[in-house]
């Protein structure tokens, strides 16, 4: 069953500290009046332009394996197949912050205002990631309510384009989920528009199913290792009412 998820809470910008951290400014650092002004402007822009929407659709492990296989371009072995095998529930998801924010970011660059553009971009990126976490929370809540998972379960989002799941996997994901209904489209390179959109699979189950050693082939070419932070943060993804 496919359902839209209200994402009203991310119509608001993140906290000041979160927004500044996105710009590489450490917590507690005294910023100039100019930077405060930029932050205020970017927050105002975000809150006046954001049109967040989210969508999830439960999917069986068998159907997901077909989505994951995509067009056969994945770098294998990859962690996701093993994680999914041990999951209690799966759902494809997509969320967007909407076209107006993405367009405004591009306009700001064209208007020679890269500082505001980057501040707004950082805020929108953080909100898009938060949207994925909110969808994970909503999915987890629905599983808890129907008794499919225990109260200690967690859920994490995984997206095409990362950790061996090739970006061409988006085509089958879109065919199953149809995020076009919330205004997200896919171009010929499998990139989403609006730019500030996220998609992937939500994997729910015991927290330990998400643990994996980062020694896959592609891990050696990766320097961000965000997977480590995501796994560590799992305990913070708690069920929320949708």
């Amino acid at each position, binding site marked *: 069953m496919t359902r839209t998820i209200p994402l009203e809470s991310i119509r608001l910008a993140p906290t000041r500290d979160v927004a500044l951290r996105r710009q590489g400014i450490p917590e507690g650092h005294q910023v100039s009046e*100019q930077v405060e002004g930029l932050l205020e402007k970017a927050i105002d822009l975000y809150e006046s332009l954001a049109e967040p929407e989210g969508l999830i659709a439960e999917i069986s492990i068998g159907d997901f394996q077909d989505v994951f296989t995509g067009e056969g371009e994945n770098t294998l072995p990859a962690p996701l197949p093993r994680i999914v095998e041990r999951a209690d529930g799966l759902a494809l998801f997509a969320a967007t912050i909407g076209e107006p924010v993405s367009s405004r970011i591009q306009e700001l660059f064209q208007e020679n205002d*890269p500082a505001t553009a*980057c*501040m707004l971009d950082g805020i929108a990126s953080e909100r898009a990631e938060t949207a994925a976490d909110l969808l994970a929370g909503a999915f987890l809540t629905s599983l808890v309510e129907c008794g499919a998972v225990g109260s200690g379960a967690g859920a994490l989002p995984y997206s095409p*384009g990362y950790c061996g799941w090739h970006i061409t996997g988006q085509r089958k994901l879109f065919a199953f989920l149809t995020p076009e209904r919330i205004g997200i489209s896919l171009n010929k390179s499998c*990139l989403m528009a609006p730019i500030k959109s996220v998609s992937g699979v939500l994997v729910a189950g015991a927290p330990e199913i998400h643990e994996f050693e980062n020694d896959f082939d592609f891990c050696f*070419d990766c320097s961000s290792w965000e997977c480590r932070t995501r796994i560590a943060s799992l305990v913070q993804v708690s069920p929320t009412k949708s």
Partner: protein
Amino acid sequence: MEILKNIAKSLMAGDDQKIVGEVKQAIEEGIPTTQILDDGLIAGMNVVGARFKVHEMFLPEVLLSARAMTAGVAILKPLLIAEEVPSRGKVVLGSVQGDLHDIGKNLVGIMLEGAGFEVVDLGIDVPPEKFIEAAIAEDASVVGLSSLLTTTMDIMKGVVKLVGERGLSEKVQVIVGGAPLSEEFAQSIGADGYAYDAANAVEKVIALTEND
């Protein structure tokens, strides 16, 4: 000269309005255009880059300085063209095919322009062939490739390979950057350089072009 110091200071402060008046004043004082650019604007931007590197300045402040730089260069540009002053070099930039993340690439472009380079920004989702065509058409000495997705990193390898196949390796240097990349990755695909951030990209491009 005092006015050049003031231009550098205004640039460091990211004051794009003040800098316009100061650049105009320097022109009226008869200071050579290249000196205003080198000893005022670029000198200020060099300090900004150095302070950014040691975390004394942060991204928003650097970008305010970049905006001031653009405002100052806009005043000088007609004079630089009239005087046929050569640029420091031309760089073709783009996010590789399959990748739409462009903030890092945009920052590199802004910082390179601030350092006196001409930048040809091909945008996002750029196929390998397009990088080569642009490098030839624009007579660029450096091609900069950006990628944020691990699964699009192979496209970078394709661009480096094409540069070799077209016999451009001696003329065109390839530099790569993006969150999932590393120096080791750059070396493994045969790229000429790797940059871990926008300021570092400028340093690397300067080093690559000076070695030409």
